[in-house]
C-alpha cells in the first residue's frame, strides 16, 4: 500500500485491556455467537463431513484459480457484467471512481464489504467529493462515529446499546435518546430508506463468485444488500480475486458453512444471486453491473502452497469469536482492517511483515481458531511461519513480503543461549540454581525497559527457590 499504517500495538492493547466496558460488550457477544454456532452444528460427524467438503471445494477452486478467473470473466461478460482487474487498492478505487464520475454520481450507497474496507474506498471517494454511505446497520453505526469495523461479521459489536443510543441522539438531528433496540432500528430504517431511494450507485461485496455461470452471490439478513444492488441504476461489486468458486453446486455447502459459522443460522434472510444487469424487457435492477477483481498481494500469497491456504477463507468470523486474544481486545486494537486470527495471518501477508508482522504475535497458539475454522485453514502453522520469516531472510520467491525484518543480533543471541542452555544439562542446572537464588530478588531490582514493558499488563512470575529437579530428587524420585 502507498502509505502503510503504523500501528502502536502495546498502546492499543493496554487501552483495550483497560476498557472494562469493551471487555464486557465483547464477552457477552462472543459467548452468544459461539453457543449459536455449536447449536447449529450439533452433530459432530455431519459437521466434520461438511467441513471436509468446504475445505476441498475451496482447495479445488484455488488450484484452478487462473482458469476460473478467466472463466468467470468470460461468463460475466457474456451475461453483460463488466469485469475490471486491479492490482492495488488504489487501482481498484480509481476504477470505482471513474464509473461513478461517468454517471455524475455524488451519492453512493454501500453494502457491507471487507474488501472495500481494505481499499479504504469511502475515504478515497470522500476526498473526491462523493458521499459513500454505509447501509448495513452495524456499518452505519460505526460510520456515524467515524470508526472502522471491529469484527468482520458484526462490525459494531464493540458498542452496547447505550453507546449506540447516545450516538444516534448526538449525531442524527432531531433524534430522541432511546435504548430500545426496535426504536433504534426504526430510526435507521427511516433514514436509510431515503438514501436507498436516492442512491445513484450501489456498491457491494461478493461472498462467492461462480465461474460456471458468472453469478455473484451475496449473503445478508437486512435487505440493504439487495437494495444497493437493485435500486440504483449502477451496481459495482468489489471482490478479492480468491472468492471465485468453480460450480454452482459448490455454493450450497459453502453457504451452510458460512451462515452456520458466522451467526448460527441455517440460512440468512436473503441469499442474492446476481447474474446480469437489467435485461431490455425488465423493469428494474441496475442497467450496469461492474465487477472489480482485486489482487493486492493475493497472487503472491497464492504462489506458496502453505500460505495459499489463507485464501480459502470464507470470512465467517468464527475464528475471531473463539480467539482468546480477540475476545479480550476487540478488533480495533489490531489496528488493521482484518482483525483476529484471520487478520493475523492475512494482514502481514497483504501489508508486508515489516509493517504488520507484529500482528502474527497476537496469538497464544492455542489453536482454537483452527479448530473452529469451517474450511480448515491451518492458522497456527501459518502464524508460526510468519513469525519465523520475520526473523529470517528467506531465499525463496514465495517468501512472505518483508521477511527478515526482525533480524536482530541481541535477540538471536538470547535465543541461541536459550537453545544452548536447554541442550546442555550442566548449563541448564546452573541456570535453574541461579534463578532460584536470584529470582525472588528480581522484583526489587531496577527492571530493564523490556521487562517493564512486559509487566505492564502481565504479572511477573515468581521463581521458586528450588527447581523441580531438586524437589524431585529430595522426594527420592528420579529426574532422569
Amino acid at each position, binding site marked *: 500500500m502507498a502509505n502503510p499504517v503504523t500501528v502502536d500495538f502495546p498502546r492499543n492493547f493496554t487501552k483495550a485491556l483497560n476498557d472494562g466496558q469493551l471487555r464486557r460488550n465483547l464477552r457477552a*457477544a462472543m459467548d452468544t*455467537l459461539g453457543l449459536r454456532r455449536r447449536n447449529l452444528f450439533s452433530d459432530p460427524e*455431519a459437521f466434520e463431513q461438511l467441513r471436509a*467438503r468446504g475445505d*476441498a471445494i475451496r*482447495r*479445488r477452486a484455488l*488450484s484452478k484459480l487462473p482458469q476460473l*478467473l478467466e472463466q468467470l470473466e468470460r461468463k460475466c461478460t457474456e451475461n453483460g457484467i463488466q469485469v475490471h*482487474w*486491479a*492490482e492495488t487498492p488504489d*487501482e481498484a478505487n480509481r476504477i470505482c471512481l471513474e464509473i461513478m464520475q461517468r454517471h455524475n454520481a455524488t451519492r453512493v450507497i454501500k453494502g457491507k464489504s471487507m474488501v472495500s474496507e481494505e481499499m479504504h474506498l469511502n475515504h478515497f471517494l470522500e476526498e473526491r467529493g462523493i458521499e459513500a454511505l454505509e447501509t448495513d*446497520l*452495524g456499518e452505519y*453505526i460505526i460510520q456515524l462515529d467515524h470508526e472502522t469495523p471491529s469484527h468482520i461479521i458484526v*462490525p*459494531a459489536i464493540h458498542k452496547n*446499546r447505550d453507546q*449506540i443510543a447516545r450516538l444516534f441522539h448526538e449525531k442524527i438531528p432531531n433524534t430522541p435518546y432511546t435504548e430500545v*433496540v426496535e426504536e433504534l*432500528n426504526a430510526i435507521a*430504517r427511516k433514514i*436509510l430508506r431515503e438514501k436507498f431511494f436516492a442512491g445513484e450507485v450501489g456498491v457491494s461485496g461478493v461472498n462467492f463468485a461462480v465461474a460456471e*455461470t458468472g*453469478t455473484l452471490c451475496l449473503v445478508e*439478513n*437486512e*435487505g*440493504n444488500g*439487495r*437494495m444497493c444492488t*437493485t435500486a440504483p*441504476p449502477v451496481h459495482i461489486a468489489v471482490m478479492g*480475486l480468491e472468492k471465485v468458486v468453480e460450480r454452482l*453446486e459448490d*455454493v*450450497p455447502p459453502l*453457504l451452510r458453512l458460512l451462515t452456520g459459522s458466522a451467526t448460527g443460522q*441455517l*440460512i440468512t*434472510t*436473503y*441469499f442474492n*444471486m*446476481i*447474474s446480469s*444487469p437489467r*435485461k431490455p*424487457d*425488465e*423493469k*428494474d*435492477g441496475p442497467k450496469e453491473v461492474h465487477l472489480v477483481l482485486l*489482487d493486492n498481494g493475493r*497472487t503472491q500469497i*497464492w*504462489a506458496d*502452497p502453505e500460505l*495459499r491456504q489463507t485464501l480459502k477463507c470464507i470470512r465467517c468470523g468464527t475464528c475471531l469469536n473463539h480467539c482468546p486474544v480477540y475476545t479480550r481486545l476487540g478488533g480495533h486494537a489490531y489496528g488493521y482492517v482484518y482483525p483476529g486470527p484471520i487478520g493475523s495471518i492475512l494482514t502481514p501477508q497483504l501489508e508486508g511483515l515489516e509493517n504488520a508482522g507484529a500482528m502474527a504475535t497476537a496469538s497464544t497458539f492455542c489453536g482454537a481458531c483452527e479448530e473452529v475454522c469451517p474450511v480448515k485453514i491451518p492458522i497456527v502453522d501459518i502464524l508460526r511461519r510468519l513469525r519465523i520469516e520475520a526473523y529470517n531472510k528467506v531465499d525463496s520467491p514465495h517468501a512472505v513480503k518483508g521477511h527478515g525484518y526482525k533480524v536482530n543480533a541481541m535477540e538471536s543471541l538470547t535465543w541461541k543461549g536459550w537453545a544452548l542452555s536447554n541442550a546442555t544439562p550442566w548449563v541448564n542446572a546452573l541456570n535453574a540454581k541461579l534463578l532460584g537464588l536470584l529470582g525472588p530478588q528480581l522484583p526489587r531490582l531496577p527492571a530493564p525497559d523490556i521487562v517493564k514493558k512486559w509487566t505492564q499488563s502481565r504479572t511477573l512470575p515468581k521463581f521458586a527457590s528450588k527447581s523441580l529437579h531438586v524437589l524431585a530428587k529430595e522426594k527420592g524420585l528420579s529426574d532422569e
Partner: protein
Amino acid sequence: MSNARANILARLREVAPQADTAVPEPAAPPIEALSHADQVDRLKRLMEAMHAEVYLTDSGNWTAVLKDVLRQRSLNGLLYAPATPIGTTLSESWESDLPPLVGYDQVVEQSKERLFGIDAGITSTKGGLADVGALILWPTPHEPRLMSLAPAVHIAVLEAANIHDSLADAIAREHWQDKMPTNALLISGPSKTADIELVLTFGVHGPKELIVLILDD
C-alpha cells in the same frame, strides 16, 4: 489502459501446478428424502421460527385467505404483477373493501415513488427449500425485483409441489447452471438484523413482514 489483468494472470501462470493443493472431495452427505407432508411441515415450521406468517391453503381458497389477511391490516395498497397467473386471479376477484391493487407496469425510473410508498406487495415464487425454510424467487420482466423488497409487507404465494428438500437438490433437479436469471433469490423471513447487542429485530431495511400462502392441493 492498465495492464492489471495481464500482470495478474501472468503471476498466476508463472507458478507451476501444485499437486498437493487439491484434496479428495467427500461426496455430499445423503440427504434424507422428505415426504411431501414433511416438506410442507418443515418449511412452515422453520419459516415461522424466522417470524414469517405462514398459511396453508389450496388453489381454490387462497384468495379468500389472502383477503382475510388483508382485512386485518390497514394497508394503502397492494402492489401486484398484472401479467402473471396470480395477477390475473387477483384482478378478477378483487373487492372494493380491500386495499387497491396497484400494478407494477412501468420501469422503476417512472415508478420509484409508488414502489417505495406502497405498503404491501404480492409475488409468486419459484419454489421452496424444506431443509432451511426458504422461498426461491426468480423475478421476471412481469414480476420485477423490487416487488418483494420495497414494500413493508411482502406476501408470497408458494405452490407446495415446488418445494425441494434442499438448495443443492433444487439446483441439481432444475439445472440452474444452464439458465440463471438476472437475479435469483432465497428469502427465509422478514428483513432482520442483530447488529445492536446481537438482539434480533425485524424489519430493518427490507419488508417488516413476510406472509406466505402455501397452496397444497
